[in-house]
């Protein structure tokens, strides 16, 4: 299945399937065309038989032939028999009257004089001229009777120890056309042709076309595959380069933020902490007036609050203790600013202690981006960050009840999430953002714990 992830392999597979399907389809069409051609050729031959071989020599009184009165059929046979030997593909020839009586047959002699009836198409041709035909129907009554007679003869021959007559048992083409008796009566001349030989000849023509169809198709698939492979390689290289640049940008951004956080921590935070201590010390001095004390205590409180906010901000930029055991504390620091925007935030971490530090850091980064988006855009009233681990998989969910957004209209991949989605995918995990207008937003990540 990994092979099918390759677009080139997939294209090749689909291409092969299409070529096979087209080849089979073409074969079927060619077979049908060959068969139509065979029938048309047979119909043409029958018309020639009617005009030149049989028609001109129909004896008077042929249409009165019965099972007993067959002298006229004798005459027909003496004329037609030797001529039919020259037409290789003819299996047999029958002549019918309008009432469905067979008055002559070159091979079905036991049936001469019997009535079997004609179908609509045959009657139409007999009365109005033209030609007709198709693949012979072995279920027609006269064909059934002939088959039965031949089987009986074969049985008799076998019983007498004689050589059994060879009978052609392949497909037959049946064609028919009108002839006119000397009395001016229309009769139906019916001829059967062996299908195998005709089809073999016609298939020889169509076989050349089959390979003409297949060759260019295969060549097209091969050329397209080579081109596609080249394009895919180029696209893949481009995507890899883009990812590398994205990662570089993110790394640079992280590095810069860490540098700022470090600088702030080393200087501003220390200074503020010192100032807060000094203000509190002065406020506690008994010699300080009440008014001044009150002002100093207020200033001290403000300083401590600012210090806390700054520490929280610094923690967001560069959390001090980003490993599995410290994940809960780091996430708690992350949601600290929520209170300032009237969002009731909570963190719940279970079973994440056994996760690797790398995966813990990934969870924290995704949570950081999701929380940041909630604080900036959601206008939510509640925010929940949940991490669950079972030793195998680590799951993060960040859920808010804010205004949400329409994923069809908004690109769910912000700059931050796009880079993280790539990182999560590389780690074998999935990152999903679900939202709808008025229904809040859920960011869900699932990744291996190790």
């Amino acid at each position, binding site marked *: 299945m990994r092979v099918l992830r390759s677009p080139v392999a997939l294209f090749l597979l689909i291409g092969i399937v299409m070529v096979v399907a087209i080849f089979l389809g073409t074969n079927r069409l060619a077979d049908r065309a060959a068969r139509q051609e065979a029938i048309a050729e047979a119909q043409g031959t029958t018309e020639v038989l009617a005009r030149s071989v049989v028609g001109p020599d129909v004896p008077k009184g042929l249409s009165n032939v019965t099972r*007993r009165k067959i*002298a006229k059929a*004798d*005459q027909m*046979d003496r004329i037609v028999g030797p001529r039919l030997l020259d037409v290789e593909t003819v299996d047999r020839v029958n002549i019918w009257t309008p009432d469905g009586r067979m008055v002559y047959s070159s091979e079905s*002699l*036991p049936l*001469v004089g019997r009535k079997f009836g004609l179908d609509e198409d045959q009657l139409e041709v007999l009365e109005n001229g033209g030609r007709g035909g198709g693949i012979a129907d072995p279920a027609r009554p006269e064909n059934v009777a002939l088959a039965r007679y031949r089987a009986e003869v074969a049985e008799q021959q076998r019983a007498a120890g004689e050589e059994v007559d060879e009978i052609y048992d392949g497909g037959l083409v049946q064609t028919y056309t009108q002839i006119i008796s000397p009395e001016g009566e229309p009769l139906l001349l019916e001829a059967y042709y062996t299908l195998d030989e005709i089809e073999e000849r016609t298939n020889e023509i169509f076989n050349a076309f089959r390979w003409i169809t297949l060759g260019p198709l295969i060549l097209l698939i091969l050329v397209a595959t080579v081109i596609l492979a080249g394009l895919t390689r180029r696209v893949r290289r481009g995507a890899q380069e883009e990812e590398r640049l994205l990662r570089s940008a993110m790394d640079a951004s992280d590095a810069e933020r860490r540098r700022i956080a470090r600088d702030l921590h080393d200087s501003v935070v220390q200074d503020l902490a010192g100032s807060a201590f000094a203000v509190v010390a002065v406020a506690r001095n008994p010699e300080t007036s009440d008014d001044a004390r009150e002002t100093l205590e207020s200033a001290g409180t403000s300083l401590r609050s600012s210090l806390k906010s700054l520490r929280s901000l610094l923690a967001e930029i560069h959390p001090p203790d980003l490993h599995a055991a410290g994940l809960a504390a780091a996430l708690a620091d992350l949601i600290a600013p929520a209170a300032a925007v009237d969002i009731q935030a909570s963190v719940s971490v279970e079973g994440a202690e056994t996760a690797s530090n790398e995966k813990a850091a990934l969870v924290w980064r995704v949570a950081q981006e999701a929380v940041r988006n909630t604080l900036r855009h959601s206008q939510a009233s509640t925010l929940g960050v949940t991490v669950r681990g079972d030793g195998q998989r680590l799951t993060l969910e960040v859920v808010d009840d804010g205004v949400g957004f329409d994923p069809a209209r908004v690109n769910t991949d912000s700059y931050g999430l796009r880079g993280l989605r790539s990182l999560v995918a590389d780690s074998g995990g999935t990152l999903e953002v679900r939202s709808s207008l008025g229904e809040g937003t859920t960011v869900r990540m699932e990744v291996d714990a190790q």
Partner: protein
Amino acid sequence: MFLRGPAIVLSFVLGAAALVSAPALASDGRAAKDDPAEVDRDRCNADTSTRAKLKVDLAENNSLRLVVIGTVWSNDTDVWEWKLRHNGEVSDSGRSRGSEDASLSFRVNRTMLNGYGVDDIVFRAENLRSGEVCRTVVNY
């Protein structure tokens, strides 16, 4: 006495031979459809030496057809008009004359369809000069 003995024996032998061959020659035979049928008339007319024969057999390798051979030993070169009837209808007709190459005889050889049931075949030839008629029948 010695000469009479062998003569008697010879006459007995010839007489026995005549008795044996007569039925075969005189019969108006209906054979099974697998066997050929022949009719041989010694004379077509009591005043002449004309003889006729009709033979009917299945065509070689083709049980659907019959081979019908009518022969007339006319002992002349007169024109004879002949007809072959199959189940009462004229299947073929024509004129022929005896050929010196064929010992003053002529032969008609035709195929017919092997019909349903018994085929009644009649060969009739009439000398157009003398009016003599030869007629043989086979029921095959």
